[in-house]
């Protein structure tokens, strides 16, 4: 997969805009300092530094030499200061050059965004270069192979490598090994705390991206260039923040990549493994940083030696003996023993437990503008309504109605927009799975192909956050217990490589995530046996297939021995279901014994607003999500049949559906008794249906869902509450839960 040039440019422009947004005010301040020396605090200084580095690196990488040249001057200029100082003082001439450079860069980026290429701007550039030289900075626009500029295909030609070499040569020498460790301890970086958190978030993103590049490197060697860029950026950022150990490690890793690129080869599998470990180590630094600790590299000296040994030997053609990798990673327990189930659990430790979406979120500027527009429209519309209500007399109702309608319209736009801002792609939850499967596959000795489909599917960021753990659980189960060993698969005439497929897509107002494997499937007989042993199934009570499979989600099935006995599934499946239910979603399982298991997670697209039907039972009212209602009926008593000891059923066009009074399920008094007195709501949850007798339906309404979980815990049959126009609280029914209660009654 090659990322199209326009995509890279777009990403760069967006990154640039974000940085510039933060530096703009500062630059204005710089300009106002006039002839006085200009003072920059540490936060401002490192922000500017990052901006300059980003411009320079991207200018080189994307092939915009003028931009790179300007940025190089800025980088040099900012070298007068140092991130560890609390304040950096620029002379008026330096400050002017800084502002000029930033303005020029801004113009170039503008034209890059619209025309995908640099403007020539001979005059302006001449002025800038003169000013730069006057202050003793070198000015050089790199000749560029294709005059038109624009994005260059990553090619292994030498001039390219040379350029990268320059780029590296320019960097301040990485902290020499001897003072490195003391630097970290002695002078804590003085940059503001929010800089640290920006750095940490960036570093996490960089490392995530690097991991992805590493995992796909074999199939797409061109990703080497991305990797080079990731580590280069990380090196630059760490350097600016004064984290010399991270900087040095990144720098050395970059060297290894550079080396590989010089030879026009890629990394071997062992090198990839080393890099993945390095990514983990660097991640650990970031974690420690986030916790307010020191970003010191664990076993720093060891890592330096390891990486140096790597550079020294030829990493590509003759990878060092694999044993080197094994024994140099004592902390990570890469064992040479035959893989066991226990090992696979350890493997998962390497993967962050949850998909971290980060505290911040990148929002398209256009959407923010829309938000602003809507907010001002809302104020205007509210003013109209207020005005009308003040001069109540003389206002005709049509006028008032129109104003209210307008208000309603804007409010619902606003809500839609704010919701769309919360949407993030599924990719963030999928990110860790490649690594997970790779690690698990290595530890269990089962070759596995992971297919991810629909990573671009969007869902609420809370969904993405909460779905990370269940996904990891399910994938781990599939590898651990679903997929057979290669020998067994051969015997069964299955392809030796197992397949796990994860597909995400939207269906009506839900996101579906379907996880399937072609392993051994679920053995019903064992599940029933376990269910009986745990008292979950009454002896001799006939169970439908879905009820049997549903048992694996019972907490009783999550113990280790059940896992192995019940052909597999089980590790924390009750937890998976709980997490999904927290999102008002549900899990369904299907399995063909001996061939496959499919788990389907269905989660509502948005969590906060639902379309609902209000129903009344006695004096109480409830909201039923509209998508769970199949139909409303006014049946004749002749359609209702009493079953001996098993409640009633109602036949609807030949189909027999169990019938319940909602009043019975929730013990409500004063509700209608007979079917012909009330109305019947047929609700459905997948294949399961139930007919509920209520007194009346009141109408459809959009309601804002408020969770009761924090204050009241999980309540079967109730998914939340909402405050309606009359000020009263109404409960929102959880249809799968209601059906479960009903089924328990009928049992």
């Amino acid at each position, binding site marked *: 997969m090659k990322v199209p040039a326009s995509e890279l440019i777009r990403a760069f422009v967006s990154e640039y805009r974000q940085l510039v947004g933060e530096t703009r005010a500062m630059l204005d301040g710089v300009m106002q300092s006039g002839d006085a020396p200009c003072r920059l605090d540490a936060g401002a200084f490192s922000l500017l530094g990052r901006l300059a580095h980003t411009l320079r690196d991207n200018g080189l990488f994307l092939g915009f030499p003028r931009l790179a040249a300007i940025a190089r001057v800025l980088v040099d200029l900012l070298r007068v200061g140092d991130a560890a100082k609390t304040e950096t003082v620029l002379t008026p001439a330096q400050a002017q050059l800084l502002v000029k450079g930033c303005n020029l860069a801004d113009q170039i980026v503008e034209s890059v965004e619209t025309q995908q290429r640099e403007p020539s701007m001979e005059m302006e550039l001449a002025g800038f270069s003169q000013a730069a030289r006057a202050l003793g900075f070198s000015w050089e626009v790199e000749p560029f192979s294709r005059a038109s500029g624009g994005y260059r295909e990553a090619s292994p030609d030498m001039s390219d490598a040379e350029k990268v070499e320059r780029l590296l040569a320019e960097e301040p020498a990485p902290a020499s090994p001897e003072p490195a460790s003391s630097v970290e301890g002695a002078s804590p970086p003085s940059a503001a705390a929010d800089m640290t958190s920006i750095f940490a978030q960036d570093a996490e993103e960089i490392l995530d991206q690097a991991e992805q590049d590493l995992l796909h490197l074999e199939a797409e060697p061109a990703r080497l260039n991305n990797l080079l860029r990731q580590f280069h950026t990380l090196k630059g950022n760490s350097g600016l923040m004064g984290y010399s150990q991270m900087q040095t490690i990144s720098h050395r890793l970059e060297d290894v990549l550079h080396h590989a690129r010089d030879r026009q080869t890629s990394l071997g599998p062992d090198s990839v493994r080393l890099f993945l470990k390095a990514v983990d180590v660097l991640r650990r630094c970031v974690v420690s940083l986030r916790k307010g600790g020191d970003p010191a590299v664990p076993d720093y000296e060891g890592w330096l030696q390891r990486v140096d040994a790597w550079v020294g030997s030829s990493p590509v053609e003759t990878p060092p003996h694999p044993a080197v990798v094994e024994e140099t990673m004592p902390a990570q327990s890469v064992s040479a023993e035959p893989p066991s189930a226990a090992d696979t659990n350890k493997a998962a430790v390497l993967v962050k437990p949850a998909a971290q979406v980060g505290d911040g979120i990148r929002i398209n500027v256009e959407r923010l503008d829309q938000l602003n527009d809507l907010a001002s429209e809302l104020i205007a519309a509210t003013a109209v309504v207020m005005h009308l209500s003040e001069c109540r007399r003389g206002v005709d109702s049509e006028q008032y109605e129109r104003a209210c309608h307008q208000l309603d319209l804007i409010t619902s736009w606003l809500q839609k927009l704010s919701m769309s801002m919360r949407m993030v792609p599924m990719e963030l939850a999928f990110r860790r799975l490649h690594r997970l499967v790779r690690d698990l596959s290595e530890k269990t000795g089962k070759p596995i192909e992971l297919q991810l489909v629909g990573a671009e599917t969007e869902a609420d960021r809370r969904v993405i956050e909460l779905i990370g753990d269940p996904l990891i659980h399910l994938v781990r189960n599939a590898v651990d217990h679903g997929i057979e060993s290669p020998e067994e698969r051969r015997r069964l005439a299955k392809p030796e490589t197992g397949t796990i497929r994860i597909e995400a897509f939207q269906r009506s107002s839900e996101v579906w995530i379907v996880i399937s494997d072609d392993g051994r499937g679920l053995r019903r007989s064992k599940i029933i046996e376990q269910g009986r042993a745990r008292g979950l199934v009454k002896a001799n009570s006939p169970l439908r297939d879905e009820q049997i499979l549903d048992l694996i989600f019972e907490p009783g099935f999550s113990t280790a021995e059940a896992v192995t006995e019940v052909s597999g599934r089980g590790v924390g499946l009750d937890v998976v279901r709980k997490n999904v239910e927290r999102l008002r979603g549900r899990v369904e399982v299907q399995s063909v014994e001996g061939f496959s298991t499919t788990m389907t997670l269905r989660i509502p697209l948005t969590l906060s607003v639902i379309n609902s039907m209000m129903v009344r039972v006695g004096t*109480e009212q409830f909201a039923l999500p509209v998508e769970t209602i199949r139909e409303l009926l006014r049946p004749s008593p002749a359609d209702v049949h009493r079953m001996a000891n098993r409640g009633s059923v109602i036949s609807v066009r030949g189909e027999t559906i169990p019938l319940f009074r909602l009043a019975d*399920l*929730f*013990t*409500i008094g004063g509700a209608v008794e007979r079917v012909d007195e009330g109305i019947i709501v047929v609700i459905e949850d997948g294949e399961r249906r139930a007919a509920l007798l209520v007194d009346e339906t009141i109408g459809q309404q959009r309601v804002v869902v*408020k969770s*009761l979980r*924090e*204050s*009241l*815990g*999980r*309540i*079967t*049959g*109730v998914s939340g*509450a*909402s*405050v309606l126009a009359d*000020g*009263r*609280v*109404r*409960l929102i029914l959880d249809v799968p839960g209601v059906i479960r*209660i009903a089924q*328990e*009654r*009928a*049992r």
Partner: protein
Amino acid sequence: MAIVETNVPASQKRTGKHLVFRLAGEEYGFPILKIQEIVQWLELTRVPRVPDFILGVMNLRGKVVPVIDLHVRFGLPPAPVTPRTCVIVLQVQRETGLLVSGVVADDVMEVVDVPVEQIESPPEFGARVSTEFIAGIVQIENRVILLLNAEKVLDSRDWTFVEKVLEEKDQAHE
């Protein structure tokens, strides 16, 4: 047996201000710093399948807040709703965040300043309320006030257990 409240701010330890309210004819107190507000009794929305001491949920300016009946929680005789009945809204810190809940009071009396040294530990038995809810006892003139532990009173950790029991009851029911 002294119950040590670990997360009480020092300022409260010094002043010991408590809101005194009446429940089934007896007087109780909550630390004033745990109290968010006092609202008039209003009609609640009943919630099915929760423990019976949860009277329901109310609308507190757009927020949905559960209301607890301490008569039931403490096993006291029920009291009718009168014009003096009100809801004391408490907030306590939990791992998951701030928990806001209301408790019903038959009448709210006053705020008293309880000198810390006058607070006695609750008797191990014989008190009209289970000692787990009591932070201490104080005597002011001829009144005996039971000071309650807001965290314990609102603690819902055992409620999930209740939920389980209800489910089992449902199954046994048929």
